[in-house]
């Protein structure tokens, strides 16, 4: 039977604010000594109170604006109650029914719209380290508590506790893993353009949770075509775009096989096992938590005025899609060229700067685009002006094409035995021919280009 996958996505993006979400501790925890970026607030000590980070809220809203969301004029934080050792307060401060942003979209290259349900703000948890064997960890000298099980114990590092997280939830609009990956790359690019997160997968700046279900194609033709499957499977612990693709493909196949056998997959949370490329059941619907959300009484509701919204909008830089369209229009680039040149803000800015300088030397934007895309020079180590200089120089050194043609024809005629040897498979002979041509041009011209031309010429003859 044929099935259509129905996929939605939750993405957590860690913001790169200086301080944490609700206290003044540094939010930069990567590679730091455990429990050095902590205070009463992020340790959840008795009596400590959260004070929201304005910068984080602004950035969350900017992400929302960049995803074409509506901003809520009145919003609030809520408590999500559950017990876990990495959650020092016994609840996570998150947002429940009034997120800062909702109803946005991202448009894929196929023009398909992926709906953004909501963009909300929350705090990260501490990090648990499950230890096997006492030798893995050197306890401080002053440690007096007994470790009853010297073989197996867990440690908590609170440096990550309270780091600002933005959660971006989509509608179940994806139909395959490729769409998901394209969406993720776009999202990653957008938050990097906004300069609000490093969005580095390896460092856990971006965490992905797809929920997947499948429905029979035959159903689509009937009246209930828009009805969602009665279950969904959420997959956790995915830390790369490659694994999200694999996990989704695995789930589509697994669920399809179950349906083929006449069974309905159960609603559950599964974890991705990257070693065996499979998903494993973690928690079923029956064990689902009741988070007992209620408004966070320690933080007053948060409002935003129209003028504050305009102010935020004015802080949003030109985003990749707009930039790409402008590059095509203003510089006459092809779609694929423009796409590559807007990959990062750094590349795009370099290109535009080089174009500006190049103009004075009569160098076309397309020429700069070509040289950057084909990486004929290592421009990443150059200034835009240096790139232009290099182009100007190489142009000057270029031989007129006809002259080079003539020299090559002459050498081929003259060095008949080298040509024969090359044709018999003696590759060294080609280098001999190139050398002869270069001697004739007195060093001008690009050896690779010359080699290519000789091969073409020899090809014509045979």
């Amino acid at each position, binding site marked *: 039977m044929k099935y259509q996958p129905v996929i939605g996505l939750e993405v957590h993006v860690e913001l790169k604010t200086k301080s944490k979400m609700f206290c003044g501790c540094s939010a930069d925890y990567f590679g730091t000594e455990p429990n050095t970026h902590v*205070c*009463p607030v992020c340790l*959840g*000590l*008795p*009596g*400590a*109170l*959260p*004070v*929201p980070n304005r910068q984080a809220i602004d950035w969350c809203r900017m992400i929302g604006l960049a995803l074409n969301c509506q901003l809520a004029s009145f919003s609030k934080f809520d*408590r999500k*109650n559950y*017990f876990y*050792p990495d959650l*020092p*307060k*016994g*609840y996570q401060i998150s947002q429940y029914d009034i997120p800062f942003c909702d109803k946005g979209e991202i448009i894929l290259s196929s023009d398909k719209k992926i709906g953004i349900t909501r963009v909300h703000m929350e705090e990260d948890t501490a990090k648990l380290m499950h230890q096997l064997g006492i030798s893995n960890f050197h306890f401080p000298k002053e440690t007096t508590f007994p470790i009853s099980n010297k073989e197996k114990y867990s440690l*908590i590092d609170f440096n990550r506790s309270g780091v600002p997280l933005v959660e971006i939830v989509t509608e179940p609009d994806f139909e395959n893993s490729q769409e998901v990956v394209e969406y993720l790359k776009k999202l990653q690019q957008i938050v990097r353009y906004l300069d609000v997160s490093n969005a580095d997968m390896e460092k856990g700046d971006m965490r992905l949770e797809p929920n997947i279900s499948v429905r029979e194609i035959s159903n689509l033709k009937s009246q209930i075509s828009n009805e969602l499957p009665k279950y969904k499977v959420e997959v956790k612990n995915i830390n790369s775009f490659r694994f999200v693709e694999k996990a989704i493909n695995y789930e589509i196949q697994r669920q399809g096989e179950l349906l083929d056998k006449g069974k309905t997959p159960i609603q559950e949370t599964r974890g991705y096992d990257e070693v065996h490329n499979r998903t494993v059941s973690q928690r079923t619907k029956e064990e689902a938590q*009741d988070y*007992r*959300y*209620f408004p966070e*009484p*320690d*933080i*007053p509701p948060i409002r935003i005025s129209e003028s504050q919204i305009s102010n935020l909008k004015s802080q949003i830089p030109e985003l990749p899609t707009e930039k790409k369209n402008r590059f095509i229009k203003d510089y006459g680039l092809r779609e694929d060229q423009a796409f590559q040149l807007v990959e990062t803000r750094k590349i795009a800015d370099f290109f535009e700067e080089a174009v500006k300088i190049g103009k004075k030397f009569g160098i076309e934007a397309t020429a700069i685009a070509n040289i950057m895309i084909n990486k004929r020079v290592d421009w990443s180590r150059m200034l835009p002006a240096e790139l232009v200089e290099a182009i100007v120089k190489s142009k000057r050194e270029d031989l007129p094409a006809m002259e080079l043609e003539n020299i090559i024809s002459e050498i081929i005629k003259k060095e008949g035995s080298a040509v024969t040897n090359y044709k018999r498979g003696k590759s060294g002979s080609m280098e001999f021919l190139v050398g002869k041509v270069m001697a004739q041009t007195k060093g001008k011209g690009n050896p690779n280009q010359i080699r290519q031309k000789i091969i073409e010429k020899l090809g014509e003859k045979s």
Partner: protein
Amino acid sequence: MDLIKLTISEAKKGLKKKEFSARELTENYLERIKKLNPQLNAFITVCEKEALESADHADKLILQGETWEAQPLLGIPFSMKDVYSTKNIRTTAGSKILENYLPPYNASVYQKLIDSGAILLGKTNCDAWGHGSSTENSDFGPTKNPWNLDYVPGGSSGGSAAVLAADMTIFEIGEDTGGSIRLPSAFCATVGLKVTYGRVSRYGAISYASSLDSMGPMGKNVSDVAEILSVIAGSDSHDATSSPRPVEDYSSSLNQDIKGLKIGIPSEFFSKGLNSEIKDAINKALQIFKEKGAEIVDISLPHTEDGIATYYLIASSETSSNLARYDGIRFGNDREYFGQEAKKRIMLGTYALSSGYYDQYYLKAQKVRSLIKNDFEKAFNKCEVILAPVSPIPPFKLGEKIADPLQMYLVDVYTVLINLAGIPSLALPCGFSKAGLPIGMQIIGPQFSEKSLLNVGYQYEQATDWQKMKPEL
């Protein structure tokens, strides 16, 4: 001179004139505590060593010419309900869960007090987590009422009022979530102020119910309370719910004429259930206000009856979440150490927040809370302050209400409304029952009317002698 009977201004005067040193003053109180605490069980922790060090430091500063303008409470001993985090001084919230907890930081209120030169004598007993109206729910044993050791001092800040009544301290900082400052003040004949929500920082005070918790001063008279409020009030960058409103000078505005002041009397507070001795005492107080030219206005607070149910739903919901952090991982003792009352409220709150019950309980309670706020807003269109009893009954005997939790909850029927509305209320003594037990009243005002409430209270206090009466110990 009997150093333990001093008010703040008297103690300051003595220190200024060098009639005694801060060390002498502190030693007198420490001695008094040593003598009386075994009977009263009002202190959970006495920090003798730290207190004497602070006293010596204060004496040094006084010798160097430090002024009371710069440090308004320089050399004045005080104590705090054991919910305020005090760095390296045990802070238990009256619960065995925190039996061995030494906070690594100071509550903002405590920091302000030590910055103004005050000397902490110790931490006073309370119902664990503030859950209670008699201090019988303390995991460290109940506090006794200094006026009669068979009776409760009220709660949850029972230790705070008891140490004031017994002259074991000069002033106290209590905490009021549903009446926890005012009920003990009424039961022990001391003065206590529940401030407007947001007037005093909550940072570092162990949370009971975050949207209701109010930090406030307790003292032996109104002017002391006004002076303490001037020190502890104000916005705090560590508390997002603290108000940016500027702090007023509460002491200098006492003694304003109250001629023409409109005092509202809520009919619902004087109907069935109010003890007749308390009713009589309040009526006598009204007479005094009338003589001073105040005008009495009948008002109505129609949702009075819904107060207890609303309060217990909201407070329990919030406390069920606030107490989740005591999960056995970090504070030594696990959740088994919660007492009966805490367990009861955690279960009640967890239930009220559960999916399927949230709308019916928590959300509905929030809606009623809005109605209660509206009641007060309407009432304050007709009057400037409201005069009311603090509790429907005088102090009761230890153990008397333990078996009947609903009766115990109803003791707070007149106080919880004020917390739900987020408004201030000043409790002060207004008489004694035939059995010789204190009776208190409360003067309630609109948001941020502390200055006016303190003035009205001061006017009453000047016309009476209740604050001069002391229990025999």
